[in-house]
Each structure stands twice: as structure tokens, then as C-alpha cells.
């Protein structure tokens, strides 16, 4: 077992970074925690600080003002950390990619381990994405 596998063997804690988004992905991430999908039964928990987290969920297009904050948050995170780009905006910039304030999709700013496409992705898709990431 490598160091990385050892780190992600047990309960994963998530930190959610909402960039310049339309809120849909944020809601669907929260929806994963509520009774119908209930990811907490797998030990996944949204935490308040990225220092405690194993997974960094990033959604929304990143604008010029968010960019430095995202970098800072990534640097604060205890490594190894899995980064998941959620939604069309997180993956490519989506409909906002042509905007004046757009500062590049997430993978141009920090390394990304998994992409979950969709506008917004359904909670099932988010769960499936995280499971795929763990089996990688």
C-alpha cells in the first residue's frame, strides 16, 4: 500500500470551494448530504477548513478575483489532496468561458484529479465520480 492509498483508506472529508458559479452545483453538493443521497453513511463529511480535508471540490468558473484565493486554499491544504472539478464551469468554464472576468478553468490553476461534467451534475453523478476517483 502506497502512501496515497493509505491516506484515502478511511473516511474522506470534503471541502467545498464555490467559485463564480450559478449556485446549482453548490446546491447539488449539499443535496448529496441530505437524506435521499446521504453520503455521510460512507463517512464523507463537509468540513469547514481545507486543512482537515482529503478532497477539495471546486465548482463554478474561476474569475480574476477568485484565482488567487483558490491557489491560496490549495496551498493551505494538507497533501495529498484529491481535487475534483464539478460541473461544466469547473471542467471547462462552460457558458462563462467567454466572459471578461474569466481567469481560466480549474485545471489551469491547480492540478485536478477528476472531472464531473453536467450542468449541474446530478447528486448520483457526483457520488459516482468520487467512487471512481477512489478506485483509480
Amino acid at each position, binding site marked *: 500500500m502506497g502512501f496515497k492509498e493509505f491516506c484515502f483508506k478511511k473516511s474522506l472529508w470534503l471541502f*467545498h*470551494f*464555490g*467559485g*463564480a*458559479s*450559478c*449556485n*446549482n*452545483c*453548490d*446546491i*447539488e453538493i*449539499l*443535496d448529496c448530504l*441530505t*437524506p*435521499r443521497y446521504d453520503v455521510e453513511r460512507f463517512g464523507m463529511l*463537509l*468540513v*469547514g*477548513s481545507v486543512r482537515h480535508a482529503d478532497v477539495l471540490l471546486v465548482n*463554478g*468558473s474561476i*474569475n480574476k*478575483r*477568485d484565482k488567487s*484565493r483558490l491557489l491560496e*486554499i490549495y496551498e493551505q491544504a494538507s497533501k495529498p489532496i484529491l481535487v475534483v472539478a464539478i460541473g461544466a464551469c469547473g471542467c471547462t468554464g*462552460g*457558458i*462563462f468561458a*467567454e*466572459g*471578461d*472576468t*474569466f481567469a481560466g478553468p480549474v485545471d489551469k490553476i491547480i492540478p485536478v484529479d477528476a472531472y464531473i461534467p453536467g*450542468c*449541474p451534475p*446530478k447528486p448520483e453523478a457526483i457520488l459516482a465520480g468520487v467512487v471512481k476517483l477512489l478506485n483509480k
Partner: protein
Amino acid sequence: MVKKTLIPIGPYHPLQEEPELFKLYCEGEIVKDIKWETGYNHRGIEKLSEKKTYDQSFFLVERICGICSTSHPFAFANAVEEIGNIEITNRAKYIRSIIGELERIHSHLLWVGLAGHFLGYNTVFMWAWKYREPILDLFEMISGNRNSYAMFKVGGMRRDIENSKIPLIQEILDKFKKKNNLLVGAVMDDPVLHARTKGVGVLTKQDIIDYAAVGPTARASGIDVDVRRDDPYAAYPLVNWKVITAEAGDVFAKAEVRLLEMYESISIIEQCLEGLKKEKEGDINVKVKDIPEGWGTGRAEAPRGEVFHYVLSDGSNSPARHKIRAPSYTNIATFKKSCVGQTISDATISLAAVDPCYCCTERMAVAYDRNTGEKIMNGKDLIALSAKKTENIKNQF
């Protein structure tokens, strides 16, 4: 002498879903002043809209805000249809209202849940979001997506609600109503929630008028304002419903208004479904040839208040200018009244009480003096102000 403390909330705070920075200036436990910073969510939507055709713009305005993803297309459609003088069919009107009201239910439930979460009462959060799921199922059934519905276009709708689906929709609504009764009863009678929300974050009638607040925030303070009634659009003049108001103006009154509004929404949907049965199936579009030169304004009552869209057309197939004003833009300013003087622990629920939606709000705006017609502050003024400050700092060294 009491020590002054600055407590920042945000921009990426576990309390909020969206990036927004609040600075609470506190003395002891009492909040003395509040400032907020925006811009973390700015995407330049008004400019983007000018690059897109009218049909494409609907997908864009839908993504201004995920929760109000009907209200913005609604107002945009109203504006464009005003330019082209287009009258849509009755069936399209009914479907528009059904989608609009379903959205209001899901948004209000979402708020009730989040309000519970902010109070540290996670049971309410879990319950409200659990009961919200059937409404999202309805959306998935009607439009194919849980959140962004892509139902609107100029002159009608993209999809019909087939008459064969109506009994199923009715059945899901009936089931939802029973569960909702349970939730509303639990929230309204809970002594803990009473103690935490009554008399907290009070906005008086005068405050609402001063800050030009709209929607449930205004209605909870006894201001009887609702675009659906005051400037009728879609099927709202065709059905019976009433505007819910409360007098107290505190957080509890806002919750009360929202919870009772859900019942009105259910009643509107039921009447619209009855109306749909009388109209011919598939008759949802009128032919639109082109959008002439001119300008139009569209208003719609979003779950949070009045959404306003201004569209200027130069006769081409994309808007020459598109101006958007979302309800949270004025509602957020009321924090200055509702939070100051409260304890820090009550500040969070006071912030949440207006149901602020920051992704709606990230616009530029210029205010004009009502009496003289002068610009109160424009870009040049701001630059001049900034230059002056630099000058002052230079002089200190």
C-alpha cells in the same frame, strides 16, 4: 473601554455556499457595524448576453442563479416579448406559471432548510431538503433536468406538459402537501425556533421603504407588494390566489410568509393544471419572425422578490444592451438595519433571513438622485475618490 473586534465571514466560509465577504465590527458581543464585499462571483453576464442571440441568451440568463433559474428567463421573455409585441398562447402561459411556482416551492423549502442549518438546527435542514426532492422529481419529469430547466423561449415554451402527465403531477403534489403540512407545523410550533427567530433582525416598514427591499422581505414587514399581482404576467391574472403578508418584520415573520406562500403556490399550480386540460395539447408556441428595434422591460416575481430585465434591441438577432437587476441587490443592503445592534450569534440568521443570492447580485449599478436627476456615484467619481485617497496617503510620508 470596550475593545473593538473585526470578525470576517467569508469569502470562503463554511457557513455560506457562495463566496461573499462580510465584515462584522463588534464591541463585545454586539455588532456595531457591518460591511460587505462582492465581486467573487462576477461573471460579466450582461456583456456576455450581447454576444448571444435571443434564443441562446435564455440559457445564459438561466445560469445567473441556479435557484431562480425560471425567474430570470421569465423576466427576459417578458422584456423581449414587449419589444416584439408578442402575445403567447394560454397553454404556454399556464406552463410558465406552473414552472415558476414549482420553483418558488423548491426555493422556499431550500431556504427553510438553510435557515435551520444557520440556527444550528440541522433536523430542519434535513427534513426540508428531503421534502424538496419530490419537487425536483417533478422538474425532472417535466423538463429533464433537476435545476436548469431550459423551458423558455421567445413566444412560448420549448416543451409541453402532456395532458397524460397531469394526474401523476397532481398525485405527487398531493403527497408533497401532506409532508409539507408536517414540516410547516413542526417549524411554526417549535419553541426553540420561536425563541431564536422572534424579535431578531427586525425590519420596520420605514426601513423597507428606505432600502427599497422587495419580495418576502418586504411582505414580512407589512408592505403589500407582489409583481405577480401589481404587474400581471403569464397565467397569474387567470387564477385565484392571494398575497401573503405579515406585520412583525422579524425573521420568524419572514419564515411565516415563505411557508404560507408555498400553499398559495400549490393552489396556483393546481388551478393551472385544470386550465391546461381545457387548452389544446401542443399549442405552446407562436411564430416569431424577428425582434424589431426598440426597448422593453420585463418583471417577474422570483422567490426572493422582483427580478427586472431591460433589453435594448437594434433590430439584429442579439440584444444590444441587456440590464439585469436581481432582488437580492436591494435586499442585501437591509443588513445595515437588521444586523447592527444584534449579537454575533443572531447576525448569521439575520443575514440569511432575506435569502440573499449573491450570484444574482453581482452586477454594476449607478444610482441617480431622485430630485435633481444627477448621478450619485459613477465610475469617474470612484476613480477620482481613489486618486484622492492615494494623494492623502502620499502626503503622510
